[in-house]
């Protein structure tokens, strides 16, 4: 099943290495490949060498302004760009969008929000097909939040699709309720294990339509079964 799963490739252009390292490890957790460039020069090299599905671009880089880079890239490439900015001025945000960024996110950011924005941009740009995951006979598209099995199509709410994505990227693996809570909820939301049970319950009902099961492993957590 791993072979069938296609991988999204991100390019992160960020000069702050600690931040970059954390972002790379988080995106990798979602099952995407990430290359990191610390300067605009490195970014140009990366872009010449490989095709990327999404670029995460810091605006203040040691060898130039990310927005100028963005403006110059716009003519040659269609790759969607999300700008990471530490500035907070409203005009600055508008400026980034004017220069052709698809979206922006202000530092410091919530990984869940970054993920949500990446997903929204990819969905808008129609880059979802590459991201499909096979679940038995069904095909799960995490970008668009759809689950298809032949003619049958099931729509998933955002939290359901995120939950399914966590399961789908780790087939056969047991995931604890605590692990799921971390992925699904922001740190400041009041959630209990009961909440997870509610979401797993909802997801189960929808998955049953395409013949996919989420098995409860008593005392440990859940596991996806795609028999």
């Amino acid at each position: 099943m791993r072979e069938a799963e296609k991988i999204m490739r991100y390019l992160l252009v960020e000069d702050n290495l600690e931040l970059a390292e954390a972002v790379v490890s988080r995106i990798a957790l979602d099952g995407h490949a990430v290359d990191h460039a610390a300067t605009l020069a490195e970014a140009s090299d990366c872009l010449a060498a490989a095709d990327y599905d999404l670029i995460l671009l810091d605006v203040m880089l040691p060898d130039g302004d990310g927005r100028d880079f963005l403006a110059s890239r716009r003519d040659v490439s269609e790759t969607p760009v999300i700008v990471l900015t530490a500035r907070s001025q409203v005009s600055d945000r508008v400026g980034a969008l004017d220069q052709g960024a698809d979206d922006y996110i202000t530092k410091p950011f919530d990984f869940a929000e970054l993920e949500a924005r990446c997903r929204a941009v990819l969905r808008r740009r129609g880059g979802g097909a590459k991201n499909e995951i096979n679940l038995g006979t069904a095909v799960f598209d995490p970008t668009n939040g759809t689950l298809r099995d032949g003619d049958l199509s099931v729509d998933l709410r955002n939290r359901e699709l995120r939950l399914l994505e966590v399961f789908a990227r780790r087939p056969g693996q047991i995931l604890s309720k605590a692990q799921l809570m971390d992925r699904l909820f922001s740190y400041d939301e009041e959630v209990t294990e009961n909440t997870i049970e509610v979401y797993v319950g909802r997801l189960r009902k929808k998955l049953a339509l395409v013949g996919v099961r989420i098995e409860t492993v008593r005392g440990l957590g859940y596991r996806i079964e795609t028999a």
Partner: protein
Amino acid sequence: MTPSGSIGRRLTVLLACVAALLSVLSWSMVSSFARQAAERTQDNILAASATTIAEALRSEGDEIRLELPYAAFSMLGAISQDRVFYHVDVDGQTLTGYSDLAPDLETPAPGQISFGTVTYRQATLRMVSITRVVLAGADPVPVTVSVAQTRDGISAIATDLSRTAALLCVAFFVLAVVLSAFVARSSLNQLTTVAEAVARRGPSDLRPLRDRAPTELAPLIQSLNRFIDRLGTSLRRSEEFITEAAHRVRTPLATVRAQAEVALHSARGDEEKGRLRRMIRAIDESSRSAGQLLDHATVAFRADSLAHDAIDLAVIARTVTSALEPTAEMKDIAIELASETVIVRGDGVLLESALRNVVDNAIKYSSPDTTVRIGVSADGAQAQVRVVDEGPGLGAGPFDRFTERFHRGDNAEGVVGSGLGLTIANEVLVAHGGHIVLAQNEEGRGACVTLCLPLASGLA
């Protein structure tokens, strides 16, 4: 700035004073010329009259005889109706006329004419005397012919001329005042042109003035340009400072937050997780506060010199909706937008930031699986953007305190915020001549925040 008088008025008054002076001067000159001309004419006619009489003297034997020629008096009547007196004196004896007419006036030498002004019978007379030597028999006898005339008619003519001159001068003066006002205004128009060129500018337009202006205004424009330049530099500096400050504060916070989140992920113990969560919350609080403080500064600065662009609130609402949709989606919150084209005048960046703050609040305080509704509509002369959520609502009134700086609602516990969101939104609206209405959602739970703005006149 209190105006210290008006240059235009001062210029007009000054020019009018000069005109008045010139008018009076020219009036007095014209009057005195008129009087002199009238007097000279009288003198000439008197002289001609006296000469005519002197020419009419004849000697018959030893006697000198005179037949007064009619012409001598009729010519005097030609200029005015003044009374005429005459006296012909033959060697000290009155031949004819008024013997008491100016007896003490010096008789001129033969062949000479003398002019004089005398008082006779309570009247001032202009008198001409001419002496001619007439032969009476063999003796040459000096005969003095004096003709005098009162000056009333001449004075009347002079006064008449002077009055006409005065009228002309007054007319000239009035014309001069009108022209002065016109000249003052048209000269100062150049100043107004420069002022308008400055006033027309947008708040961020700090280019030097390039308009053609008269040489006299060059120093003013030069110093204005130098001032604009300094202002631009200082604005750029403070903008750079804000940007730099934000960057310096937020970059390390971003690193710490990212690392903490990675740590949260690999942490096993609940206690450890709790600590990391508290840490992330603190980071979010501080970065949010920093961001909103900087936004607040930007808003205060931009609101001082508000732009007046035509802004479609529907476009603003669409932009904000699409920007916040991913955030809302994370909590399975739907944003419903019902909008019609509603044009207001103002600063698009500020209005967007105001609405963004309000919608952001609504999403933050809403529970999962709910809907945030945004409605853009026009009601009479007022534009409205209504943001309704299904969250816990605003609690008990009064709601005014929510727009006060750093005030957070009783229900805000457990949600990251700095208390500046609604303050910023409120300031933006007040700067645009609008206001925020906070209310409980009429249909059950939740808050309803309405941004009210005056509609752009003539564009709706």
